[in-house]
Every structure is written in structure tokens, then in C-alpha cells.
């Protein structure tokens, strides 16, 4: 077993092998009970490298990319991307990787018929460009090992979207630096799903947890088809600071037996909050705990679905460090070596000042909100 790894073995020192998403899931498994993370495995970058080597794809890849002109247009990029995708799909997964994937998939239960999500897990070298390049692929409701194998290859092919090709050319990233891991994880039939940031994305307020939620699967929100409900929770007191209920005319629901996703009209439910207050607080509590355990603000994907003990169980689908505010050097609000008296006088004479790098500095309406979301 060297081409797949259980999620629990995905540690940060293996980031190059398993990618960021798998590291996030591995971290979650270390700080949360096992049943909170849907079972799954990762197909490593070693598998990708072995596969491209074995199928002799490097030469073709290099040729296709070399044929692109110095400043290729969108059409040329798209054509190259499509050629690579076709090339990949025709190659098929093959042994020994297919066998390992088959075993790991069978171990997820359901007699080889369990619906899974197949998602790309980008490596560190690539991660800076990933969100912007849109190469984070997600396939939901995938059933059967053949389909899983097909979607793993599609994830690999997403290394070569027009954007990614263009980005690599402009930044001189060598082709052998590009590799992709793929996470295969059992699906949750989400009644509600959403994301949570354990920091305010608008102003970097570390005392605020922001939760966005929609009914059913989260895909329509990611795709911009729906506005989610938004809840702000005080990270210290766990009081709900504010609730903004959005109009959500439909929900995408997964049928667990067939793995198909159906779009359902919500009717009266459309304008109701999709989370109860207690659920909001429960999700926020978990976010706070994860942040503490992992040592910094987190960006968490979650879903509520029927759990082992009945009732709505909170599943954690991804967690990664928040990067926009947390990595930024924050200048102190208080100038160094000031006394309370100095600050009182400054407050009176100057009025309240915004934190440097705060809302006043954020670029345009909405500021930095929403960046980096996949």
C-alpha cells in the first residue's frame, strides 16, 4: 500500500505526498472524534507520478505544452487543456494503482457501491495558485470503483486547466513540480451544509466566528447560485451576534442509494434559517475547539447529516488554516509604550481609528471577504 493512505495518516510532514486537503482532514481526525470525519483515503502524488511515468505521459504533456506559442490565446489554452484531459482519460488508471484504490474504496463499506466524493488535494508548491486557478475539482455522488478511477484521473487532469497552464508558464513553474493528490471520501447526505471561518473575513476580528449555511449540499453556494444564511457567533461567549437569513429557493439533495443529486424546490422553507440557534452554537463550539487544537484561525467545511446515534450529526469535511488575515503581520492598535492616559487623550482628540490593515484598507466593498474559498 504505497499509492493510497488512510486520512488518519495524512500529516503535515506528508503534505507533498497527500496534498493540503488531506492534511486538513488528517488534522481534524487528530483533534476530533473519528465519527465526525466521513471515512476516506487519499490517492497520493506518488500515484500520480508513477502513473504518468508508467503510461509514458510526460513526453506527450511536454509536447502539447511546448507547442503552445509564447503568448497563447484563450482558445489555444483551452485546446491544449482538452487534449491533455483526453489523453489522461484514455490512459485509464491501470494496475497497480487501480487495485489499491479498489481495496481502499471497498473498505469504505457499502459492498463496493458506496457514494463518495472525489476531490483534488493540491500540494504545497501548487497551493498558492490553486484557488485562483480554479483547479480544485470536486465530484460528488461517485459510485463504484470504475467511476472513482475515472474521477481520480479527472482530478489529475485539473492540473492542466487553461488557467493553470497559463499560470505555470508565466511563473516559470517546471512541469515536474506539478503533482496532485486526490481525496476519496464517503458522502454525507447533507441536510444542511456550509463553511465556517473562525475569524471575521471582513475585518480580521478574531473574536468572531462566521458560519454560512444552506440546505442540502453546499455546491450551489460554491457555484454562486445561492446566497447562504449567515451567522456571526462570539468566539468567547458563544452568543450569536447576528443572523442574516437568505432566500434559498432550492436545495441540492443527495440520494444515498443511487448517489444522484436532485434539486428540490424549497417553497416556504426558502426563507427560514436552515440552522437552529443550538446548532449554530454547536458548530461554532467545534470551530473554536479546532482552532485551539490546530493553533490558529481555521476555514472549515462542514455538513449536518444523519449520524451514527440518530439526529443531525455534525460532519467535518475540511479544515485548513485561514490565510488572509492570520498570515498578515498585524500592527498593534496600541502604539508602543503608550499609557492608558495617552490613549484616552488620543481617543478624544483624534476620534476612534480603524485598525491598520482593517476595513478602511480593504480593497473596495466587501474587502477581502470570500477570497480563497473553493
Amino acid at each position: 500500500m504505497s499509492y493510497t493512505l488512510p486520512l488518519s495518516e495524512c500529516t503535515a510532514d506528508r503534505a507533498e505526498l497527500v496534498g493540503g486537503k488531506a492534511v486538513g482532514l488528517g488534522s481534524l481526525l487528530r483533534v476530533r472524534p473519528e465519527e465526525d470525519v466521513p471515512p476516506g483515503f487519499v490517492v497520493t502524488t506518488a500515484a500520480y507520478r508513477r502513473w504518468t511515468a508508467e503510461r509514458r505521459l510526460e513526453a506527450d504533456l511536454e509536447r502539447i505544452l511546448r507547442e503552445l506559442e509564447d503568448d497563447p490565446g484563450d482558445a489555444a489554452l483551452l485546446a491544449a487543456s482538452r487534449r491533455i484531459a483526453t489523453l489522461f482519460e484514455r490512459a485509464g488508471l491501470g494496475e497497480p494503482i487501480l487495485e489499491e484504490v479498489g481495496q481502499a474504496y471497498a473498505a469504505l463499506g457499502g459492498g463496493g457501491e458506496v457514494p463518495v466524493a472525489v476531490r483534488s488535494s493540491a500540494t504545497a508548491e501548487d497551493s498558492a495558485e490553486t484557488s485562483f486557478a480554479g483547479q480544485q475539482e470536486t465530484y460528488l455522488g461517485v459510485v463504484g470503483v470504475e467511476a472513482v478511477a475515472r474521477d481520480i484521473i479527472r482530478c489529475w487532469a485539473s492540473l492542466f486547466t487553461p488557467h493553470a497552464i497559463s499560470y505555470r508558464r508565466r511563473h516559470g513553474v517546471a512541469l515536474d513540480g506539478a503533482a496532485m493528490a486526490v481525496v476519496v471520501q464517503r458522502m454525507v447526505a447533507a441536510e444542511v451544509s456550509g463553511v465556517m471561518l473562525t475569524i471575521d473575513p471582513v475585518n480580521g476580528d478574531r473574536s468572531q466566528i462566521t458560519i454560512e449555511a444552506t440546505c442540502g449540499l453546499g455546491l450551489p453556494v460554491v457555484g454562486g447560485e445561492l446566497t447562504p444564511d449567515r451567522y456571526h457567533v462570539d468566539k468567547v461567549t458563544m452568543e450569536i451576534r447576528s443572523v442574516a437569513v437568505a432566500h434559498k429557493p432550492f436545495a441540492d439533495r443527495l440520494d444515498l442509494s443511487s448517489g444522484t443529486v436532485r434539486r428540490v424546490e424549497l417553497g416556504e422553507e426558502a426563507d427560514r434559517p436552515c440552522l437552529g440557534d443550538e446548532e449554530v452554537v454547536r458548530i461554532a463550539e467545534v470551530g473554536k475547539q479546532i482552532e485551539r487544537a490546530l493553533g490558529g484561525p481555521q476555514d472549515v467545511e462542514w455538513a449536518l447529516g444523519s449520524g451514527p446515534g440518530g439526529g443531525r450529526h455534525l460532519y467535518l469535511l475540511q479544515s485548513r488554516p485561514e490565510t488572509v488575515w492570520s498570515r498578515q503581520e498585524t500592527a498593534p492598535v496600541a502604539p508602543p509604550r503608550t499609557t492608558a492616559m495617552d490613549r484616552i487623550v488620543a481617543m478624544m482628540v483624534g476620534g476612534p481609528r480603524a485598525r491598520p490593515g482593517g476595513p478602511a484598507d480593504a480593497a473596495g466593498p466587501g474587502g477581502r471577504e470570500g477570497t480563497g474559498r473553493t
Partner: protein
Amino acid sequence: MATTVRRFPSPFEIQTPPGAEGWESMYPPYILFSEDNREWEEGRFWFLDSLHRPEVEYPFDTIVHEAWNSAASELVTRTLAVPVTNGYVERILNGRLYLTILPVPDQKVVEERVPIYTRRAGHYFENWADLFERWRGKLERVIGELKAIQIPRLPHLEDESVVTEARGYSTGLEMLNAYQRVVDNVFLVYQYHFELLVLGYTAYLNLHQFCKQVFPGIPDQTVANMASGADILMFRPDDEVKKLARKALDLGLQEVIRADRPPAEIIADLRRDPRGHEWVAAFDAVQDPWFHFSSGTGMYHHERAWVDDLTVPWAAMKGYMERLERGESVERPVDQILERRERITAEYRALLTTDEDRAAFDQNIALARLVAPYVEDHNFYIEHRHHTTFWNKMREFGDRLAEHGLLESRDDLFYLNRWEVGQVLYDMVYSWGAPGRPSRERYWKSTVARRKDIVEVLRAWPAEPALGPVPPDLNEPFTIMLWGLTQERVEEWLAGAGDGAARELRGYAGSPGVVEGTARVIFSPEQIPEVEEGEILVCPITAPSWGPVFGRIKATVSDLGGIMCHAAIVCREYGLPAVVGTGRGTKVIRTGDRIRVDGNAGVVTVLS
């Protein structure tokens, strides 16, 4: 470039309600809008001080805010040299109090004041504990002096000792002198009131602003919670009532005390009973100061204190007796509250990312906690202890005037302003000295009668929330803290947010938590016994002396009050959600309505 100045009506456009003609005569001329100062007055933004003065001004009761607005102005401008404020100016219009805040117009003056203010305010902060101790001494003295003022009866003949001891002056002069001393005493107590309060609020505000910068979403009440004192004097009266309840049970007096008779009669009977005697001794021992506790804010003459009217504490005591008999705890969870305060403070601190901010946070918290006991307790000394005696002293003058036929009854005195009370007392004393001299008895009596009608008419006047042009930047920290006046609030007024049909009310988030329940709307402390276990209290203003009721309600909604109002403090201490300053909760909500109180967002929703 010409810009449109948005404005509320000019004070000079406001009509006198029919039937209230001549209302201006109730107040001294300097407190009225006038043609003399029209240009200046029309150029300023005036807001209704509904937070401190929700009612139509009784002519005499204006003494309280005259004393406080002049004291506060003198302190900030002449003593502390606060860099940005030149004081607070008040006007009465149709019986309602409006204020404007004077900025320092000249940047040069601001700069001159900075070092002076830094030094003077710094002195207070550095020596706070000592100066607060001295303040308590001053307050004991000023309250003692007020109590010691005798309001004499005018004798038919002066006592022999006036001659033998060669006193040399009359009891009539003593009467006039007593009145002067009472007035001076009130003005003095408000000087003391602000001596520490302005600085206390400044320290709170400093913490508040810092927290809002580092944690933009932090709720106001969380900041207040982090700074709040461990135990508050305001709760002592309630605690004493609990002790009396326990003692009554220990002595087996529950049947006697529960009897459906006036408390005063029950106490009189208990005095004659050996077991009862022990209870009454305990009761007597706590009267001063703990029952010198107003059933309202203490700032109006008609709000009676517990010593004057036992309705509130008596109902509370019976409630505590029942709960004790059921084996329930009646204690406030002081330790839990304190522990929570420490946890919250430590957790917020841990979220800070730089050493500088952690150092500033620690300093700001320490300073806010240093001043917290004063901010939280000063009302007890002044509006409760001092004013209980003050209003009763004034009633004694009223008694004399009624005895001498210048007024129909004692409380009529409050329909004369503080200068006129000096006049009517002089008129009385002069006629006492010169029997047969007719006093202006008919003038005083007819003036009072007319004013009673005027006050009734003015009560129905829908006061404008503000007057004059809206200033460009309203978000001045002190104005927000003292009057809850924000740009947002003014926008609501401008939009005419007085829609009576609205089922959602906005106010200040006074104390966190969200609950749903049945509303009980009450308008006066006499109605407190109507409040049932688990109801949500809806009232014009939740005075601290209503403390006992907080043990059996789920949440509070008040028409008036801001984040630092007494009610918000009480609710936070009891861990109850509160939305204060809704403006019209008692008008929109009916007893029996199902309502949702969101003490985090400051919103009340009428559900059904």
C-alpha cells in the same frame, strides 16, 4: 459647494399644544428658547434627553438637571479641561428637556487643554482608590448635612431662649435659610456626582474603543461585563430584603406577614409581639441606608423610596419567603458571574496578536475595573440615598406652606420652580412676621391649579426626538455613552421610525441572551406584585430598586435606558437578557403577548 443640511424642526416652529398656553411661565427664563438667542439656538442640534428625563418637567424637579448640567459643564471645561467639550446646554420646550453639546471651537484651545487634562485626569486615575474613599466621606457628610437641616414650624411666639440666649434672628429667617441650604446641598451633591463620573465613563470608554478596534464585532455589553465590578452596592437593598425574608421564616412569622393588610399595620402589630419584635428590630436596622432606595430613578419627586412606601420591598420579601419555603436558592450567582468575567477577559486577551495590544488591553481593563465600583455605585449614594431625604425635606416645606394656607397640599410645591419656592416661602414668612399682611395666597394656588392642567396637556405632546440641523459627525464617544445618541439613531428619527404597527422594536442590547415568553407590561412599582414567575417584564424604565422582581422574570424590555443604565447592570448581574431604550415597548407590547427578546442584537419581536 452647497450641501443640503438635513434638519429636524426648528424649536421656533414647534407649536404649543392647545390648553398648554403659558407653559413657559413654569420654568426660569434662562432655560427657555428665546428670540434673544434665536440665531444661536436655531444653528444648533438639540436632542431630547429621554434617557434621563422621560417625563414632562415638574417645575421644581428641574433643579436636578439644572444642578447636573451646570456641574458637568463646569467640571469638563474649567476643572478638568477636557480637550474637546465646552459643556452641555439645556432647554425646555413644551415641558420636555432638550440638550446640546458644545464642542471646543478652536483647535488651539484643544491643544492647550491636552497637557492640562493629561495632568489633572492623570492625577485622579493615579490616586483613584484614595480619592474614591475621600469621595465616600464627602458624600456621607453632604447627606448628613442634608438630614440635619431642620425645617422649622413658625411659632406663634418665639421661644424664650431666643431672647435669653440672644439669638438675634427669627425662625422665619431660619426657614428661608433652611431652604437655601437644601438647594445648595443639591447643587453640591451634583458637583461631587461628576467629580468622578466623567473620568469613570472615560475609562470605560477607553476600554470600549480599544476593544472595538481589536474586535470590531464585540458586543457593547461584553465590554461592560469585562469591566464590571464583582459586587454592586445597588444589590444590597435586595440582599437585605432576602435576609428579612429568612428571618421572618426563622421566627415563624410567615402567617402574620402574609396577611392581606397594609405593611405598616403588620409592622405595628409585630412591634408588640416578642418574636415579632426581633424581626422589627432587624427591619429598623436596615432602613437607613438600605431602604433609602427609590422605586424609580430617584430623579423625580413622585418616585417614592422604600422607606416611604413599602409596596415593592414587601412584595419582594413575600416572594423570597415562598421561594425559600420551596427550598429554592435566592442568592445571586455572584461567584459564577465573577468567574465568567475572568474567563471571558482571559479568552479575549488570548485572541490578541501583539505584545503591545496585550499590554494595552491589560492597562485598559485594569483602569476600567478601578473605576467600576464608582460608576456602578454612585447612583445609590446620590439618586437613592441623598434624593430620598431631599424630596422628603421638600415635602416638609410643602407641609408648612399648606399649613399656612399658601398651597392646597404639600405636593403642590413641586408645581413651583426652585426660584418661586423661595418666593412663596418668603411670602409666607413675611405674613407670619406681620400678621394681617395679606399674602399672595390666591396667586400661588391658582398658579398651581393652572399648571396641573398644563402638565396634563403636555404629557400628551408627542415630543420631537430632536431639533435643528443634524451635525455632520455625531459619533462622539461621550454622547454615545451618556445619551446613547448615535448617527444610526438619528437616521431612524429622521426616517420617522415611529410606526406604531411595527412588530419589531429596536433598542440597546442591555444584557445578552435570547428568550421567548409572555409579556407583562407594568408602569409603576405598585404593579410589581402582578408580575408572575417566568414572565418577561416590559416597563418604561427598570429602576434598580425593582431588583427583587428580577429573581422571577425571564427577561426585561424597557422604553428607556442605555448600555450603562441601572437596568442593564442589574440584568447582567442576574444573567437575564435585556433590551433597553426601545422607546415605545410599553406602547406596542400588551400584557399576554408572546415576545422574543434578543439581548444580543437589541431587538424585541412581538410573536403573537
